[in-house]
């Protein structure tokens, strides 16, 4: 019987870190992926009709910089909230396959941190994106190891 029967600190040890066969994702340089350009997006927000292309540019997928990812996410949610409900379908229709997948990734990221009315807006976008991308686009959100 070991001496130390009180401490349960051992339960917090991450044994996977000590596994020599641990699977590591390949590192791919993401240093120059800063996310969409804030200034550009802000100026486009004042224009009409609103477009998604600017805010979906340069997604911070490969970078590990959490700040960049959060900034990008907030920007995207801001843009998505500025759209009128009736324009959502057309905006989604203007995206290509990769764009729809990226939009889905941002939508689910947005669901993770709800604020004010964001979830309701995101749900509307989700419905329209699902109609175009199908469940396949959601599967790709789940399987992507490097995401926004």
């Amino acid at each position, binding site marked *: 019987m070991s001496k130390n029967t009180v401490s349960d600190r051992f339960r917090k040890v991450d044994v996977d870190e000590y596994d020599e*066969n641990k699977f590591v994702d390949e590192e791919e340089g993401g240093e120059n992926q800063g996310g969409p350009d804030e200034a550009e997006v802000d100026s486009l927000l004042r224009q009409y009709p609103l477009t998604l292309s600017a805010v979906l540019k340069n997604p911070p997928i490969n970078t590990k910089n959490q700040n960049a990812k959060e900034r990008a996410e907030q920007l995207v949610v801001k843009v998505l909230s500025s759209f009128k409900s009736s324009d959502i379908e057309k905006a989604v229709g203007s995206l290509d396959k990769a764009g729809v997948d990226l939009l889905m990734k941002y939508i689910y990221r947005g669901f993770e941190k709800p604020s004010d009315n964001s979830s309701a807006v995101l749900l509307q976008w989700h419905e329209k994106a699902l109609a175009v991308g*199908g*469940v396949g686009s959601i*599967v*790709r959100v789940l*399987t992507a190891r490097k995401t926004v």
Partner: protein
Amino acid sequence: TLFYYLTTQTQAAHLYNNCDSSSIPAVCLASVQTCRCTVLDWSRCPAIPGTKIGPVEIAVSPNNNAVNIYEKNGKDWVKIHELTEHSGRITGIDWAPQSNRIVTCASDRNAYVWTLKDGVWKPTLVLVRINRAATCVKWSPLENKFALGSGARLISICYFEQENDWWLSKHIKKSICSTVLSLDWHPNNILLAAGSADLHCRIFSTYIKDIEEKPGPTAWGAKMPFGEMMLEHKDCGGWVHSVSFSPSGDQLAWVAHNSSISVADATQGKEVIQLTSDSLPLLSVLYISPTEIVAAGHDCCPYQYTYKGPRSLEFVKKLDIPKQTSKGNMSAMQHFRNLDKKATDEEIGDLDALHQNSITQLRIVSLDKAKVVQYSSVGLDGAMVIWDFKP
């Protein structure tokens, strides 16, 4: 299409729809790769001299540690053999048509080669030397060796050593970081494609100089020492569930868990084109003709794709078009019954497809002069469907 339902209780496969027995081919090919629920294999029995039609047999494992061999007798399937040697769940069966040998692998880290002697299937243990479960097994085209994928993050290439009368294995470990999920052989009997859970798809050379001639150059490369990696496609987007070479061997198709199908073309500098789909992930892929590919998975329906040249991988059509059944009017009794059972009074029918659950494996059933005529699908619903391929 012919539809069979495999039941474990009665140990026989029953025919659901009427099948046209004249469509049974003279030579039945087929071997079924691993299936999560049922592992299925077709035999290619040599035809009885003097007749055109040979007996149709399948080797099935209903998610346990035994393999049952059924023979088609008129409209019924009759169980004629039971192969019990494994102590773990069978994960792969492959039936070699020319030499009439069956190789089985299981989660008990073993593989056996079965040969028919005096009407009884006798097992021979294979020294695979793995410390994790085997996941998939495939005979090479010339049947002088077979490849075994496993959770030990390596592939065992096994060949028969005449001197000591046993099966030996050589391991391919290079750069494989996780479980090998699927294997397929190139027609040249040397190159082997492997899909893995480390999200990569690779082609290795399995040239064993003791048992075969040095291979000539192919579109994938000229130098092929054992274990050489001729192709490594990184980050296929998800687990690579299934791989399939084209009949010529110049293209390799695979399906990954991110709901995509990809083709690597050796004639185009090994360029890879990926087509994402809007449906659930595909689990099995089969190259049916030089240009047509059939894939099926969690959508319970086989899809046809075509790859005709660089950058042209396209979806063709859904291959399961169920007959329209008249729903009819629901009685009041039915309404209340539905409300009680399913909390809704809508008519919730079965899935609008032959399979009622994910299709886990596609296999070629018969060929007519190297052209695939029929292929089979098995699924988690325990059903097996034989499809006719009409190009």
